[in-house]
């Protein structure tokens, strides 16, 4: 007779000294883990709730400017440097790690309309209402730091500037889109198409010869700087304030429009938008992409900042607002994908977390594993009604809330009216237009 009775040697199961960690044995047999689905669901619910509990996105406010901040630019090589220009012509350089202003420059008399950093990071360019373009040194500790390296006095007013991502050229926009070389005092190429003024200009970080501009005649025009003629354009129903390229996808750009929406287009197919992002309740003034290319942040006239995913449904993932923050003129996403900066009308630049409940400091491996697990759980159960309800819930200022309600009502009534018209007209005479095509008036190759 052979007998074996289960007996566990306590030495194998208990720790030897107090300083050791406890021994943990696992058995993944599903029989030993009953109620997997309800438990996972509850863990997902708890994770969502904790996410909301720990969502404290506001980090700090950089104050110092004496007038509204109307433009900002990131240093293209350093993570910690930011340049901002205000409506009284002052340009400041900030160190984000200390949240201090390292340098103050009286750049222009009048608004600072555009700021951009050069490709190698040595120099930045500012453009203002006093019809000058100024080149400055980015090094805050150099000898001639308070004076521009170069000043170009021009004949017309410029409203925006952007530097090429690899070469030593930059583009300005105003009456026309001008391409400049760093050594020359005259633009090397001028693009003129109609009599309307151009709001903003941006170079493509991936396909570096492409550049996009938004024009007051409600169109968005694309240029290849190697060609003498503009490429193509798309016209929307209302004017776009800014159009920004996606840093990961070469041909995708997003335009921030006056009709409270943002439109993402693929340059190769301009007859339909890739996505229409609704959620703002007033004109969208600025957009900036995250370095991952999957999300972007937008600042609007309705005193809020929203973060949108590029490819999802078109609704915002997050909304940031403060009582003290007034009209948001400019937003930037930091290059390490963690922070968002917003410059607004009440002279403050605010620093926010890109992911509101993220822990900023040192994260131990166990914490990281727990965070990753919770994220996956939230993703898995995202469509369950209770989880969805909690994840979606955001407090929003009363004005925005009322405006959202009103917009919803308007949209619903417009839809009903269209349906009624369709019902009572000849079959096929009122065609259905997809949302993505609805806002485009024309496009031209």
């Amino acid at each position, binding site marked *: *007779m*052979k*007998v*074996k*009775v*289960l*007996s*566990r040697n*306590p030495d*194998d*199961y*208990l720790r030897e000294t107090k300083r050791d960690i*406890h*021994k*943990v*044995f*696992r*058995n*993944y*047999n*599903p*029989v*030993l*883990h*009953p*109620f*997997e*689905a*309800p*438990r*996972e*669901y*509850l*863990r997902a619910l*708890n994770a969502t709730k904790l996410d909301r509990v720990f969502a404290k996105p506001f980090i700090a406010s950089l104050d110092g400017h004496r007038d509204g901040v109307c433009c900002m630019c990131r240093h293209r090589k350093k993570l910690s440097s930011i340049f901002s220009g205000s409506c009284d012509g002052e340009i400041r350089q900030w160190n984000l790690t200390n949240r201090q202003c390292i340098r103050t420059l009286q750049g222009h008399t009048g608004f600072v309309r555009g700021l951009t950093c050069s490709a190698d990071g040595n120099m930045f360019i500012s453009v203002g209402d006093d019809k000058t373009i100024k080149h400055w040194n980015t090094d805050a500790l150099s000898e001639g730091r308070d004076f521009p390296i170069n000043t170009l006095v021009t004949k017309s007013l410029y409203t925006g500037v952007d530097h090429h991502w690899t070469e030593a050229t930059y583009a300005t926009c105003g009456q026309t889109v001008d391409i400049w070389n760093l050594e020359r005092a005259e633009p090397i190429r001028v693009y003129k198409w109609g009599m309307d003024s151009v709001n903003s200009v941006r170079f493509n970080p991936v396909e570096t010869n492409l550049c996009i501009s938004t024009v007051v005649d409600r169109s968005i025009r694309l240029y290849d700087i190697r060609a003498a003629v503009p490429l193509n354009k798309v016209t929307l129903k209302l004017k776009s304030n800014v159009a920004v390229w996606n840093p990961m996808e070469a041909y995708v750009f997003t335009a921030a429009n006056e009709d409270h929406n943002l439109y993402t287009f693929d340059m190769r197919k301009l007859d339909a938008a890739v996505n229409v992002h609704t959620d703002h309740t007033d004109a969208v003034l600025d957009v900036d992409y995250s370095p991952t290319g999957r999300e972007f942040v937008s600042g609007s006239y309705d005193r809020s900042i929203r973060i949108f995913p590029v490819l999802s449904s078109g609704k915002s993932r997050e909304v940031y607002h403060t009582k003290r923050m007034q009209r948001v003129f400019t937003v930037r996403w930091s290059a390490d994908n963690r922070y968002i900066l917003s410059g607004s009308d009440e002279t403050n630049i605010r620093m926010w977390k890109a992911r509101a409940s993220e822990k900023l400091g040192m994260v131990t491996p166990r914490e990281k594993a727990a965070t990753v697990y919770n994220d996956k759980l939230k993703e898995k159960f995202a469509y*369950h009604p209770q989880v969805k309800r909690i994840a979606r819930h955001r407090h929003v200022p009363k004005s925005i809330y009322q405006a959202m309600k009103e917009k919803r009502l308007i949209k619903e009534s417009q839809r*009903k009216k269209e*349906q*009624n018209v369709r*019902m009572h007209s000849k079959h096929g005479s009122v065609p259905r237009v997809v949302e993505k095509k609805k806002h485009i008036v024309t496009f031209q190759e």
Partner: protein
Amino acid sequence: QDPFHGEAPIAMEKMEAYKRGSEYDTKNIRNKNLKRRMKSSEEKYNSAVKRAARYELLLTEEPGFLETEEGEESWSIDQRTIADAADIASANKHFELKLNQFGPYRIDYTRNGRHLLIGGRRGHVAAFDWITKQLTCEMNVMEAVQDVNFIHINISLKVIIDYQVHRFIELELRMYCTCASVKEKNVTFSIKIGCFFFMSFSSSNQHGFLQYTDVSIGNIVSTINTKGGRLNIMCHNPHNAVVLLGHHNGSVTMWTPNQKEPVVKMLCHNTAIRALAVDQCGNYLATSGQDRKMKIYDVRMFKPLHSYQLHTGPSNLCFSQRNLLAATCQNVVQIYKDPCVQEHPYLTHRLRLPVEDVAFCPYEDVLGVGGSDSFVSLLVPGAGEANYDAFESNPNRSKKQRREWEVKALLEKIQPDMISLDPMVLSKVDHVSMERLRKDKEERMGFVEETAKFEPKHKNKGRSKSGNVEKRKQKVHGATIREQIKEEMKAKREKLLKAEESSLDQIAV
């Protein structure tokens, strides 16, 4: 050259054991993006199943066994021989406590098999660590004790005393009675604690009421009138937490706290039911009746699998973690190894006086038997699960680990309205709601079929007085009714026309 090139093969049965649900066929998905995502998630899932199946190599312990030689039968082997043949540590697990003063004893083990609670009918209640024989607490409650049970924290226990369910918490080695529930004079017969819900279910005889209590908060979740008369046979299915009740007419009913009606009603025996037990996976149900039969059912399909005829119907039944079945007939304890296959018992043990209660210790090869004048701990090789998962229930846990486990368990506490026959319902796609939503959307987008309430527009200058609003509403209501009537008349006319045509045809012919 590597003779065993590539990965080691894994047996299909092992893979099946770790799979939850069937594979999803990604061939027919039209949307390329979705297809790519589904394919990659299926691959990830399959690799996870493979790794879990392969992890079995790393399990340290092997389950116990008893192999007999030619001519020897396992049921004739007595406990002393087994204890002599096994090692010292195991031999110490076989002991007998002579407790002849306080009546028949009911027993309960904690979920991790470390502590044991015994309660005598005459009021003696004691909890101790049965391996180290260290007494946690002992007292006499001065009332008749019907049943005892550990709650999730092993320092608190529930005792049913005559009319009431008392809950004791150990605080500095003294027992404080915290709550006495149930106001009416109902004699409660048995309680069982369901773990992930922190709920206890108690049954009473006079009116046939089944009561669910949330043990962590202390409130009564629901009281159900089962209308089944005296309820003294109760068992709970650890797989999906439904309560099974055995009735005097031979039927077994299953209850959840959400419904006032039994979820399932099965007729198991022609006579009264004496005992019920469900195995850990929720596959098998063992029932015994006054007709001296013991039957095994498949609980998921409700089909009878096997039927034994014994010399009496067993008065207690219990399944172990590895699906051994313990049945007690008067003073004999019989243990069956594969209840569906073998007719003869695996092991037997005879006590002097009739057996009151029987319970397998989780994660150990031990069966605890509460008799009329003693408590016996029997060695049953192959009863317990060899490898425990420390994150679920850890027999060797420290005080800190226990506290952490308690907090985590309370966070994951499943609400009573999630209890249903299928515990994995939450992970499945809710086809019904989806269909309904889709239909609603189609209707919305397609035609204005919304007979939603007509709300007349608010007008100024007194034109929105209540009387005027009502008039406007009536106008619209009248219009819709007229439309409906018109359509009905049209349909009727068409029907009549068709009927006329057929009669005319007949005449013509």
